[in-house]
């Protein structure tokens, strides 16, 4: 049996398995009966923390999953860095920065720079309103990162509106992640449970002092506790993560 036969056999086997798999998945998905489940409890208890249930689930009940998710992004950013020479075993490899400065057209030049400011400010608003309105750290951070993408696409990598070096992006990212981790540690120190929502006073029996003052009061009698600050940390992390990835991938454009 030569290599070609093996390939053909493999294709047939793969097709058969794909067929069986599709039948099973479609059968399962069409015979689905959904129950409310835990979502009901979350919707019932969540309003006493903050108005936006999804943010409350993301940063309070399942805040630890969000931590893991943030670290997936961090891992990906580090890995992309490794791919292009930063931290390779046996010393860093300097990648030649070949991405030339582009000459933007007049329309681009006039509109891109002001638009960057407007988009960034909007991203900050989304971040800070994450516990009241649809939004939050991921969304806000991604919006700010789009401003960076825009300026990179229009003006090129070398000379764009932001002069963010790889080093400063990394510092941003580290600071964002450390904000998240340390707020979690604050909960651990004060109540004995990691990521306890300090300041929200959801379970007054635990005896946590309400030190987070009502800096961010919103149209409820409740207090979101650390959720807005977690949002800010995530936003910093997401924006610097995306910016690093785009910097690295654009820098490796040609060889």
């Amino acid at each position, binding site marked *: 049996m030569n290599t070609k036969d093996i390939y053909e056999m493999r294709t047939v086997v*793969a097709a058969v398995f794909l067929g069986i798999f599709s039948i099973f998945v479609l059968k399962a*998905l069409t015979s689905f009966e959904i129950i*409310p489940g835990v979502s009901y409890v979350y919707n019932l208890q*969540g309003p006493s923390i903050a*108005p936006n249930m999804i943010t409350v689930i993301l940063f309070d009940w399942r805040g630890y999953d969000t931590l893991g998710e943030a670290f997936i992004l961090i891992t*990906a950013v580090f890995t992309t860095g490794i791919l292009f020479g930063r931290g390779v075993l046996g010393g860093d490899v300097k990648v030649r920065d070949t991405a030339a400065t582009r000459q933007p057209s007049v329309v681009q030049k006039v509109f891109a720079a002001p638009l960057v400011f407007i988009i960034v400010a909007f991203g900050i608003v989304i971040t800070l309103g994450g516990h009241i309105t649809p939004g939050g750290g991921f969304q806000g951070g991604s919006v700010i990162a789009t401003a960076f993408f825009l300026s990179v696409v229009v003006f090129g990598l070398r000379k764009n509106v932001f002069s963010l070096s790889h080093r400063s992006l990394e510092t941003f990212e580290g600071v964002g992640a450390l904000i998240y981790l340390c707020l979690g540690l604050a909960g651990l120190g004060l109540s004995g449970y990691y990521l306890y929502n300090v300041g929200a006073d959801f379970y007054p029996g635990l005896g946590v002092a309400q030190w987070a003052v009502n800096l961010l009061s919103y*149209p409820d009698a409740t207090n979101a506790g650390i959720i807005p600050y977690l949002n800010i940390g995530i936003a910093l992390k997401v924006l610097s993560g995306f910016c690093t990835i785009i910097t690295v991938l654009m820098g490796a454009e040609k060889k």
Partner: protein
Amino acid sequence: MNVDVQLWSFVVAGLLVIIGLYAIAFMDNLVKKIIGVMLVGDGVNLVLITEGFKPGGIVPIISEKLFSSGAVGDFANDAAYSLPFALVLTNIVIGASTLAVLLGISIKLYQHYRSLSVAHIFQEDDA
């Protein structure tokens, strides 16, 4: 016309997964394979979003008026199921991260082999 939105949404999600798997298994271009991986992730996301759908439900964000009137129980009964949405948000970030790494690796492989054909890249060590 009365269409069962949820059922068809599930069917579309299943088809997305299957198309993604087809792309991974049978397409030769590396970028198409990566798109396949992303399609699988998106199909799963659509399954989760559809699970959060509730016929006639409201957005799971409580308004000031509803909260001050104390009708939290009504809100919980009416609101869409919120947990799957949170899970989707997590999976979107996972997909974006995997995409970044995969694209980075394919750039490296392209620089070395000057080709994106999987058969070409893996020809010498595939047994």
